[in-house]
């Protein structure tokens, strides 16, 4: 492994300065479950890792009246062990509780998952269907990017040199909101998604006021599917959900690799869209 420095940043400004100093030869370090493994595998030659998990802003986990703030360094276990967060955001729990095993969940977070920008990242699609805004800090100040626009290619994101993710903000679920995530893997735990789908719905009675469906591992980035728009204004019936699942399959543009063929992945997207929409509707009804 290329010898790198370790910088423990304790403020946003310190982190920006350390990242800017080394440019593309520095990376933020959150849980380290991707970045340390990849640095060791020689994926990058790094001069510095900037530890961003000792900054107060990256550690917020706060349910407000209108907004939920999730710091970029909050580890998965904090999401599912916080009873209030878990009750309000079961769709996030669906992903936080399947990223690796218990050891990985002690360190890895949804922020690191998003910044890693893997098309198969289990944390990204749930953030997208919660209409998440990503708050990014950098040498030129702070900017906000929608979660669905964050990833730009496999392992690539909108982050420029010197920038890092501070936190993710999402609207507090209102009455009649529900979300769910499910992936397909050959093994139950500790495996990488062959395909994954997150869905959310806002119900008014039996009508879907709005919906979001996001697809993992079936394109170079997570995909915000047209299935959500298709459902808007329609009744939450089995027929409409089936039609939405078909639309989602149509939006997938997977490759064939050792984990699965493109054909299988397209099929899986349909199945997982149906299942996650059904679960989201169920949760929305419970949340009334």
């Amino acid at each position: 492994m290329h010898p790198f420095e370790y910088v423990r940043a304790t403020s946003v400004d310190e982190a920006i300065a350390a990242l800017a100093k080394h440019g593309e030869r520095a990376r933020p370090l959150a849980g380290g479950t991707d970045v340390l493994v990849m640095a060791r595998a020689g994926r990058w030659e790094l001069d510095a890792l900037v530890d961003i998990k000792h900054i107060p802003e990256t550690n917020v986990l706060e349910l407000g009246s209108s907004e939920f703030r999730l710091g970029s360094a909050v580890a998965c276990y904090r999401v599912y062990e916080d009873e209030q967060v878990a009750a309000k955001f079961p769709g996030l729990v669906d992903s936080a509780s399947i990223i690796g095993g218990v050891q990985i969940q002690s360190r890895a977070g949804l922020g690191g998952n998003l910044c890693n920008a893997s098309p198969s990242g289990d944390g990204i699609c749930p953030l997208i269907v919660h209409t998440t805004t990503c708050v990014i800090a950098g040498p030129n100040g702070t900017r906000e990017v929608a979660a669905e626009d964050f990833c730009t290619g496999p392992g690539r994101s909108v982050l420029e040199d010197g920038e890092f993710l501070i936190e993710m903000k999402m609207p507090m679920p209102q009455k009649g909101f529900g979300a769910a995530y499910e992936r397909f893997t050959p093994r139950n735990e500790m495996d990488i998604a062959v395909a994954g789908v997150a869905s959310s719905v806002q119900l008014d009675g039996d009508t879907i006021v709005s919906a979001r469906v996001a697809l993992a591992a079936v394109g170079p980035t997570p995909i915000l599917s047209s299935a959500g728009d298709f459902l808007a204004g329609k009744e939450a019936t089995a027929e409409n959900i089936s039609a939405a699942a078909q639309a989602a399959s149509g939006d997938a543009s997977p490759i064939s690799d050792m984990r699965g063929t493109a054909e299988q992945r397209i099929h899986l997207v349909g199945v997982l869209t149906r299942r996650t929409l059904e679960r989201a509707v169920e949760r929305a009804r419970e949340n009334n």
Partner: protein
Amino acid sequence: MVEKIRVRATLNGEPVDFLVAPYVSLLDTLRDELGLTGTKEGCNDGNCGACTVNLDGRIVDSCCVLGAEIDGSAVETIEGMAEPGKLHPLQQAFLEEAALQCGICTPGFLISAKALLDAEPHPSEDRIRFWLAGNLCRCTGYDKIVKAVQKAAESA
């Protein structure tokens, strides 16, 4: 040349103060700098759990943590598990149930299982299997490990 970093932490209840190169994993720090070779390396990439240690009350893969990251933290390794002259009930149960063959996975399983039983003294079999999903064993086929954890839970 990158300079070594000074780290002050608590290791198995004792204060430690040492220098470590910033890019060295906690696993290598324990084994090579601190002489605690009970923690094992299997895959060195977060998959096998052989390197599991307890960091501030949570189990982690020490190959996915930097030694420099533990400054200010408390770490527990397998060396801290038994009391002098007396095995921990989990260690005793692993022996009695023959829950190991080559033994390379054992320290990791013991640290993981201890964290589970500390938090949930009477977990179901499903819960034990789920909790231990981040620990791999190439020898035993897992059943004996799960039985040993159940036995330790009963004896407590």
